[in-house]
């Protein structure tokens, strides 16, 4: 019995270790690359740790570009779009979970279909629309688009969370004289914080990483987001892997921190909403 357990344990340890190496190596490698001076970038044999550690790539990035601006833009954008999506999705998800009404299936179906629509099909008309609204090159246009992008999925996610919470909870509150909305915010929301956190993080990360819409709508330096800036780094002159890797490291740090901090809630939140069967 004891032996069997250690045997099982060692499989687990080996598997999880290998998987960890597989997952972390690319990140390690891009980090190491960012610390290499440009003349060591291509040296053979490959150095798994730079001979001369340097921060020149980071300094360079900060000097030639407005990286602080990009990070700030991305943060503002993702936070606001994430929060707005969350609010809209909470309202929508609540209604979809609690009520039965005409057109409900159609609404859910319409949301489901949005997931299948390739982004590019509507890009040209979308651009014309945005241009008419004078929203080109302005962060609010992306906030709007990202919210639109996130709302359907988040709504259905929230619907799943609400369905797991017995409606007796808010009924009790409504008996005490609360209105439905107050009951929703006072009683139900606090119970499903992990679900909210998970949904928010999902939306935040998606917005943080979105490339094509941002490239499409933004080219002004002051309004660039990180993916747009990264895309610009592939310049005519060279794929400057030094700056590129430094920029990559800088740009993933916020989301990595968010994940490291919030991974517990993500799983907890998803657990709340996972099974609906």
């Amino acid at each position: 019995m004891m032996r069997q357990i250690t045997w099982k344990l060692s499989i687990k340890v080996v598997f999880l270790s290998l998987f960890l190496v597989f997952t972390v190596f690319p990140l390690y490698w891009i980090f190491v690359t960012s610390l290499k001076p440009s003349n060591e970038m291509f040296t053979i044999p490959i150095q798994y740790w730079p001979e001369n550690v340097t921060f020149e790539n980071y300094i360079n990035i900060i000097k030639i570009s407005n990286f602080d601006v990009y990070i700030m833009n991305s943060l503002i954008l993702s936070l606001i779009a994430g929060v707005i999506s969350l609010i809209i999705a909470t309202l929508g998800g609540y209604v979809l979970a609690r009520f039965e009404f005409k057109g409900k299936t159609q609404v859910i179906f319409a949301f489901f279909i949005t997931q299948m629509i390739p982004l590019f099909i509507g890009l040209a008309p979308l651009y014309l629309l945005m241009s008419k609204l004078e929203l080109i090159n302005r962060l609010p246009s992306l906030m709007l688009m990202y919210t639109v992008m996130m709302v359907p999925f988040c709504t259905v996610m929230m619907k799943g969370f609400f369905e797991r919470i017995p409606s007796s909870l808010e009924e009790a509150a409504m008996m005490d004289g609360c209105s439905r909305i107050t009951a929703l915010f006072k009683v139900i929301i606090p119970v499903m914080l992990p679900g909210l956190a998970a949904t928010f993080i999902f939306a935040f990360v998606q917005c943080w990483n979105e490339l094509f819409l941002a490239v499409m709508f933004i080219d002004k330096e002051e309004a660039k987001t990180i993916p747009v800036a990264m895309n610009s780094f592939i310049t005519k002159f060279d794929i400057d892997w030094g700056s590129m890797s430094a920029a990559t490291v800088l740009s993933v740090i916020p989301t990595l921190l968010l994940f490291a901090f919030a991974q517990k809630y993500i799983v907890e939140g998803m657990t709340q909403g996972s099974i609906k069967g």
Partner: protein
Amino acid sequence: MLHLKKGLWVLVSFMLFVGILAGCTSSEVDNSSGKEDKDGKVTLRMIESITSPARTTLLKEMIAKFEEENPNIKVELISPPLQSADEKITQMLMAKEDIDVLEVREQTVKNWATNQFIEDLSAYTSKWEDWNSLTETIKHGATAVDDKPYYIPYGVYEKTLFYRKDWFEEAGIEVPETWDELVDAAIKLTDPSKNRYGYSFRGGAGSSDYIEFMTWSFLGEKIATKDAYFTSDGKVMFDTPEAKQVLDTFVEVYKKASPPDSISWSYPEMVQGFTSGMTAMLIQDPEVIVTAEENMKEGTWDTAPLPKGTPSGVAQQSAGTAGWGIGAFSKHKEEAWKLVSFLSSPEQNLFFAKENSLIPIHLSAGDDPYFKEGYFSAYIEMSAKPEEFLIADRPVHYKGYAEYRALAEKDIQALLLDKLSKEDVLAKWTDFWKKEKENHK
């Protein structure tokens, strides 16, 4: 549950903090989209296409000087990522965005001119004192479509051979003067075990340009003067034995003397291949001089004239230009012209050409020592022997030219992977150009 609430608190306060910051910065972002400020200042929107951080910095420097001279004009420079910049500009023009000044290139000028996206600059150039001091090449480039100046070029792109002087000396090989010699030398200098290859091949975006000037070189004088994708006896240039020879050479230099990855290399990779010490030879624009000067040791590299074709014995390429034009939907065309003429003035252009290592546009710049010595000497040599180094015009007046380039790029990769035969490729291109010619009438 407690730890969760605490965590959420952190999140909320973080959001609030950022929100406050957002309030401060967004006001900055917003006002620049307003066109005319209260004090009557005009804001020009300028968009560039061949972007790179270094060049953008340079342009900003010049713009700052312009704003100093014209205190009531503000210029807002837009620099989209290189890869899709032209597409982006087209998109903006389709939406009738009021772009004031924009970078126009050979590939885009025809399309934008026919769609009336850009202004005919005749009205301005006729009154412009610097027009007459432009070199013939530049005047010719500016008026390539419908004989009207749709843009003022900022320089000439002509290709030259960059090579590793030290490697050639070490191996005791002469610098190649013809494509045959180039292939031989490249094969000799290739040693994959040392991660060394003879030639910086271009198989990715822009590869059709290489087929283009190689075919022109191999056909030499047979190319029709005003219609360079056709021979003087009216055949499509791909419908010739020389074109087959070109593809043989092209495929051989890839398979035997170039990094396998170079099948998808485009400008940045091929330049980097050369400057990082992976490849021995590179055929590229003068812009590379600045990059190479920055990244390579003096004495390890040099330039030489473009290799010649066989049996023609000449090299032939286009004098490529790109420059500044004015958007048709601009609301400040007078001011836009002020900026274009400022950028194109002898003084500013010389500065731009030097910093960017381009061949300048004004006759007067020819006296500047920078363009007479050192790495530019290959260009001087080429222009001193016009009968050996011919200039042909890209067929920009054909509507299908841009489409052909996109199509050819794919075919070239398929050819290199043996998915298509040389004969098939040539037949396909011949068909394309026959149709173009019929439609063009």
